[in-house]
């Protein structure tokens, strides 16, 4: 996936290394290889994060935080427009 990169420096992913218990779930679950294990989890490719939230959802110690969501323009547009406006989803 390294050939596909969206805008850099925007992902809301944060990792609290002190809280990490080193279970190794997050590198398994991240579909983009954003995290690896080095005793504890390490964020090695923050700009590869698509904020799907799988890591934070499954982190047993709450060490990972991300504002999860779907990166979909028509969905975001719908949240900006009044409710009566027609749209998808």
């Amino acid at each position, binding site marked *: *996936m390294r*050939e*596909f*990169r*969206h*805008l*850099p420096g*925007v*992902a*809301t992913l944060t990792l609290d290394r002190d809280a990490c218990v080193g279970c190794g*779930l997050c590198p*398994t*679950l991240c*579909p*983009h*290889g954003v995290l690896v294990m080095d005793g504890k989890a390490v964020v090695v490719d923050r700009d*590869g*994060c*698509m*904020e*799907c*939230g*799988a890591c934070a*959802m*499954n982190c*047993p110690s709450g060490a990972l935080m991300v*504002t*999860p*969501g*779907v*990166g*979909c*323009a*028509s*969905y*975001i*547009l719908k949240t900006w427009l009044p409710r009566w406006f*027609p749209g*998808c989803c």
Partner: protein
Amino acid sequence: MCGFVEGFLDTPVGPVPRVRMRVNAADRLGDALARLGSLRREYTVVPGLYCVGSPRPDSPVLATANYKLTFDALRSRLEGVDAWLLVLDTRGINVWCAAGKALFSTAETVRMVRLSRLDEVVSHRRLVLPQLCATGVDGLAVRRECGFQVVWGPVRADDVAAFLADGMQASEPMRRVTFTLGERAVLTPVELYLAGRPLAVALALAVVLSGIGPEVWSPSMAWERGVRAVWALLAGVAAGAVAVPLALPWLPGRSLALKGIWAGAAVACLAPFAGARGLDLAGMALMTVAVASYMAMNFTGSTPYTSPSGVEKEMRRFLPVQISTALAGMIVWVGSAFWRLP
């Protein structure tokens, strides 16, 4: 009986439907219509417990979504596998999107494990979940609430058989999403389908605008110029919804909206719109570029790599560009009808 059920297997909780591993012509037609868009809202499988092959109490349990496209993708790749299939009620939405909408969730997984009385059917307490549902499912909570340990399966149904054969181990590539040319190409028909209704409104508006001229509004001009305006808009849709997805890695820029501008400009240059010249051509090209950029931006919802933060940033930057380009295009287009008079 559904076409994909080939019989029933007796279990302590009653007969469990055994599904075919081969998809037939009817399945293929349905899957194609779902890909095209017309069938995708109600293309579902009844949630519950199914099986493939001849599973025993110690056979693995694979959970999946009840979108039939997803169900077909899974069962058609289980040649030689004996397994239980636990189909969750995800309202006919695929695994990843359902997890993002909290439909493929911890609660739904636990509910379906209980409803199907899975603990009476199998002797073990392991449940294989597709990796991408982790966005909505807390594996540890599933174990706490229903006693089944979650084993994270691979991203793609293609890899499930190899995953099971390897003692439920997924290799690194099985854990990563990809976005190959083929994976991008199958997503383009539904983009066109979803563009249908707003596009029809835009085309009608374009024809009305095309009739405006020195004679206030002339039907003959609406026809003559309207055809060209329609072409300009269709070219924009083709550039944004087809060319951008296909040429995604090769178009410059990171924002999809920017990639759409390049694709729209290329199409506007390559297709000189049936002999349009001067201001006519400029107005049409601007409309093409605006539509292409907007359509390309909408493709963010189909990609597996754009984050909501990134898409919002891209939209704040490019929506004003798209709107002003479209307005400029319309003004130049209408203006050109007056300009060409002697």
